């Protein structure tokens, strides 16, 4: 049986939903180990234990050069564990770490993975979810970046104690990238877009006013997304952009409002379980992929839906 290493750049007080999905996947393999490029707190360690993680490898981040520390930790952890499966998050930063290590260690790097079988065959999305491919490593080690919302979170309910080890790091070999400034983005109470169960997204059709989208999102406990037309117009932060050059989401439910459904937008949301589209143009391409299409004005339909949800939940 194969052994698994999960790598996180950072873990908050408790692991995120996407991180717990990786822990779940790792717990199906032997010796599931976590490596972190920072120092996790007690609570996070407890959560790791509940997934049967026996060992946590850690190394405090000196924040000297961007990305260098994470690369060293992943490299050292792989060497230390000799794992044949490495699981990473699917964001661009983690993909790049995995890809560099794949080059360094002649390992396979597979992105947008939705599952890994016991015999180390990765299932992944191709062509924006149009195809599903099975890929394996030709050299032994498989490095997989796993899409959020692909694995059902399932802790093992064991309370094993976790052994924490400090990793010894060799001096980094890569040229320095200095961090000139780091600005914290405004925190939001809403779920993180990439791992949310429900996403409500607005496009050019909101005409500068996201309040109806926000209101429905609040009623549903959903994350807020947007088309590039809406983010380019500056109506909402670029972080909310869904699509080819924004965030890719696979929620249970995606509500698209005032978005035409261009190919680049669809690339980021067409693997959603259910799609509901509200658009005043009955010929909008988004209706071709919607489970429920509503031809209508979002400024009327969204508030009515939000009020109805609140009424039923009262």
């Amino acid at each position: 049986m194969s052994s698994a290493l999960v790598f996180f750049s950072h873990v908050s007080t408790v692991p995120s939903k996407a991180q717990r999905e990786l822990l779940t996947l790792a717990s199906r393999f032997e010796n599931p180990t976590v490596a972190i490029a920072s120092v996790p707190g007690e609570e996070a360690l407890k959560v790791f234990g509940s997934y049967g993680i026996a060992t946590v490898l850690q190394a405090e981040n000196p924040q000297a050069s961007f990305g260098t520390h994470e690369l060293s930790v992943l490299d050292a952890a792989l060497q230390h564990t000799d794992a044949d499966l490495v699981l990473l998050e699917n964001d661009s930063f983690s993909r790049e770490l995995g890809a560099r290590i794949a080059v360094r260690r002649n390992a396979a790097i597979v992105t947008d993975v939705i599952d890994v079988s016991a015999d180390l065959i990765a299932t992944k999305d191709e062509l924006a979810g149009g195809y599903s491919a099975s890929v394996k490593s030709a050299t032994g080690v498989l490095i997989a970046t796993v899409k959020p919302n692909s694995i059902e979170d399932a802790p093992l309910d064991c309370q094993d104690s976790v052994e924490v080890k400090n990793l010894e790091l060799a001096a980094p070999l890569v040229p320095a990238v200095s961090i000139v400034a780091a600005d914290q983005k405004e925190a939001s109470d809403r779920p993180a877009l990439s791992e949310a169960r429900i996403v409500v997204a607005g496009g050019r059709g909101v005409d500068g006013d996201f309040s109806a989208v926000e209101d429905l999102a609040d009623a549903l406990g959903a994350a807020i997304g947007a088309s590039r037309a809406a983010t380019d117009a500056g109506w909402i932060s670029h972080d909310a952009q869904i699509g080819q050059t924004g965030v890719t989401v696979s929620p249970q439910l995606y509500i698209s409002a005032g978005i035409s459904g261009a190919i680049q937008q669809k690339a980021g949301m067409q693997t959603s379980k259910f799609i509901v589209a509200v658009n005043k143009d009955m010929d909008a391409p988004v209706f071709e992929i919607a489970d429920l299409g509503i031809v209508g004005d979002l400024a009327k339909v969204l508030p009515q839906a939000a009020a109805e949800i609140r009424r039923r939940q009262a």
Partner: protein
Amino acid sequence: MSDANNTPLTLVVLVKHVPDVQFDRHISQDSLRLDRSESVLSELDEYAVEAALAIVEDNGGFAAGHQVIAATVGPSSSANSVRKALQMGASSGLHLNDDAIAGSDTVATSKALAALVSHVPNVDLVLTGMASTDAETSVIAAQLAERLGFAQLTHAQSVEFDAAQREVTIHREHGDQRLTLKAALPAVLSVTDQANNPRYPNFKGIMAAKKKSIEEVDLAAVGLSAAEVGTEGSTTSVLAADKRPSREAGTIITDSGEAGIALVDFLAEQKLI
């Protein structure tokens, strides 16, 4: 100012010829490879070409001796994408074309690209788009930085190039932070679609491109053997690629005052609330 500041810059922009995203795209069931007819320059590479041209224009223009080399690895048709970059304003083209390369994954492709970049003397900066619009792995820039030993500056939303200090500064997003990062040349830079607005080739550009040369090289010319690329040089092996059933349009209703309620009924039926 030292003399070094006037040294002409050598910028290599990597361009990829990809199936047009506006058409249906297919993976062949025989070869498990993407059907590459109807291909165009990957839209996201236009931002990299534009970024390179802007650097040259901000630093004395091509008259100062700077070079923007549009480079690609791929079959003969890929030259069309190099040509498009030349029409936009790149100064010359470089094309690694060898049958043995077909079937390369990212590890093998980055090997071929690194060898191609190394074929160019004194490269200061390698530019790429944020992803190719076909494979969308978004990892080649990082792999090139690893292979070439260059600084890695990826996913730039804006770029400031300081020729005098020989440094590049970028802005990028990173989780819940907005970062300003700086590195010394040589570097690999990938830019997002936020970085600029790519120019369209104008008539003058199209005419000028006819006189620009594209150097074609094979694996031997860049010091690689066939076994280092293609399926043999790849670390992944694709076992199957199945088309997912395409999504079908469901129920479409027209709002006559109650559609918001119908929406909630649908959510309740599907147990989403």
